[in-house]
């Protein structure tokens, strides 16, 4: 009774119209034709900055090829790994790249289902980042096999040898999870891209470009029948991709959690890994978005609203991650297990690699707190620096989990100090270069803002006369 009597008063107190947003989600004033010109401008050709970045990335990718060549030709003895540190850089890089991918799916699928219209301006970039990050990630376990040409042994097929993969092991789970994630991300991305490729086809002047975009646009005409089915299919794909946001890194975390090792054997791992994944992914999205926004003058399409929303999500994920760190420490102390206590309460904070641990804490736990301040959430310099710190911190987190846990074996006679070789470093920095090559080619040749979605957003904003339509407040 009391609850119902309170309700009308609460309704009265609520303002009839929500306050005008401080930062509009879209403030481009020109026509749709000018908007198309602005968003497709990168397709005209790369400027000197694009070429400079492309050449640097290409050198990085060359380093990647050389490192892979050495690894495959000589074997993984060229890496720093040695028992008991059987997993080191390769798995750290793998988990880092996979995690980065998660933000793309979070933005494109999760936020689509939640009706967050502001995602329209950034979802294409984020999805592309997911696909390219997964392409890096997949290479590391493959190389770590030692004999990567036998990778198909992990796939169930009726082999003449009569053997099958053991599905009680986490490795076939990993293959299933990562392969599914990559395939679904690619399908989702391409299905969403088709109408924009049609725009690129119709917008291009050169015959070669018209034919190339025409082939990939599949003959899209933009009929209402096509739009209706397209919207439905994208919604279905978003619904299917959403569980992948939380499941893929959960499966990756099981590689660790089902092992007996102190530092790995923990039930908090799946949610802890998912949070860390989305956290690092958002940092990467911001890192890629800021230069693109400045270089192609997209401030009216990707506004302070987007930066503000992303910074808030980073802060949220940072707090969740800090919570996971605290729970991990508490459980290690509360378990009373001397090995657990040694790993968490001695080896990580005060052991051989303690410097790495404290840099990780500074990057992952301290840095995101700048986003409590509104000015920091929209400052390009602060966003860039904090995102870079978080990406470094998240790589170090995986290093701490993997190497620091492994290098102190149960038997102190097998203790080992791990040191990476140039091949390890070549693979890490080379994969960043290869990612850069793919991303720069994407920016140069593919419409990197979802034009049809942005135009629809604009149409709906106009129809609602600036009233908020499912947009988070500034």
């Amino acid at each position: 009774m009391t609850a119902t009597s309170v309700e009308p008063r609460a309704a009265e107190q609520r303002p009839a119209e929500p306050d005008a947003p401080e930062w509009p989600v879209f403030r481009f004033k020109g026509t749709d034709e000018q908007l198309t010109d602005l968003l497709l401008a990168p397709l005209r050709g790369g400027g000197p900055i694009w070429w400079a970045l492309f050449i640097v990335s290409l050198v990085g990718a060359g380093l990647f090829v050389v490192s892979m060549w050495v690894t495959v030709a000589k074997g993984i003895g060229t890496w720093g790994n040695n028992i008991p540190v059987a997993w080191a850089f390769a798995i750290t890089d793998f988990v880092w790249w996979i995690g980065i991918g998660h933000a793309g799916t979070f933005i494109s699928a999760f936020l689509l289902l939640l009706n967050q219209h502001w995602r329209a301006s950034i979802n294409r970039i984020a999805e592309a980042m997911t696909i390219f990050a997964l392409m890096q990630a997949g290479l590391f376990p493959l190389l770590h096999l030692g004999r990567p040409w036998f990778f198909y042994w992990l796939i169930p097929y009726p082999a003449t040898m009569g053997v099958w993969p053991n599905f009680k092991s986490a490795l076939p789970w990993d293959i299933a999870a990562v392969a599914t994630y990559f395939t679904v991300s690619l399908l989702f991305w391409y299905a969403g891209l088709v109408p924009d490729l049609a725009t690129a086809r119709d917008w291009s002047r050169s015959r070669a470009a018209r034919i190339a975009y025409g082939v990939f646009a599949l003959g899209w005409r933009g009929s209402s029948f096509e739009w209706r089915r397209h919207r439905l299919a994208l919604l279905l794909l978003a619904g299917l991709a959403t569980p992948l946001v939380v499941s893929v890194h959960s499966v990756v975390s099981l590689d660790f959690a089902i092992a007996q090792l102190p530092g790995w054997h923990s039930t908090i791992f799946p949610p802890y890994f998912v949070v860390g994944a989305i956290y690092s992914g958002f940092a990467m999205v911001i890192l890629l978005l800021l230069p693109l926004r400045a270089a192609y003058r997209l401030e009216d399409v990707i506004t302070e609203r987007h930066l503000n929303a992303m910074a808030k999500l980073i802060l949220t994920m940072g707090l969740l991650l800090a919570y996971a760190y605290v729970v991990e420490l508490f459980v290690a102390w509360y378990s009373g297990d001397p090995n657990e206590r040694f790993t968490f309460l001695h080896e990580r904070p005060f052991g051989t690699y303690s410097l790495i641990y404290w840099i990780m804490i500074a990057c992952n736990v301290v840095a995101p707190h700048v986003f409590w301040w509104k000015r920091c959430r929209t400052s390009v310099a602060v966003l860039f620096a904090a995102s870079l710190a978080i990406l470094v911190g998240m790589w170090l987190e995986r290093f701490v989990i993997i190497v620091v846990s492994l290098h102190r074996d149960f038997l102190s006679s097998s203790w080992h100090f791990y040191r990476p070789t140039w091949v390890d470093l070549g693979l890490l920095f080379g994969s960043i270069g290869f990612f850069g090559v793919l991303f720069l080619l994407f920016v140069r040749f593919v419409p990197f803002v979802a034009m049809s979605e942005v135009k629809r957003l604009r149409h709906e904003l106009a129809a609602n006369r600036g009233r908020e339509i499912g947009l988070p407040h500034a």
Partner: protein
Amino acid sequence: MRDAHWPSGAIAAEFEDAESLVRATRELDRAGYAKVEAYSPYPILEVERPLFARPSRLPVVVFLAGLAGAVLGYWIQWYANAVSYPLNIGGRPAHATPAFIIPTFEATVLCASLAAFVGLFWLLRLPRPWHPMFEADGFERASIDRCWVAIDMTDDRVDARRTAADLAVLGARHVVRVPPLD
């Protein structure tokens, strides 16, 4: 799909923006035209309402594909680990349901997503590189900023001259004839 078969071609009109397209499709619907298709650079929900009533079968197809994926995924694991090649690892059961759930889930999502993707383009009859609408002068702007309407010439209401006049009254920038398809 209203532009899949145009045995005697169609009559098409270009409109300035989404608002005039919405008005035009509504008026054409009211005037009794049945075989109308609209083209726009982005989805316009108000246009779809007069044009389509029937829900799509795609969600049913996707659901069934997901179900098939789940059964297939589980079956492969059961056959591989419990029937064809059972391994005794620390006495754990060969038929290990909790361990099999993860690949089963992945197979479900994979098959359902493939069905959604293939089903979409199968429903749209794409890829189809050529369509008579592409012959309409200025149609390339239908993916940039203009909106188009096309009416099948076999529509009972269509009379080449009167329909062109109707479209002009509704604010069409220009009206063109489109060649037949099939």
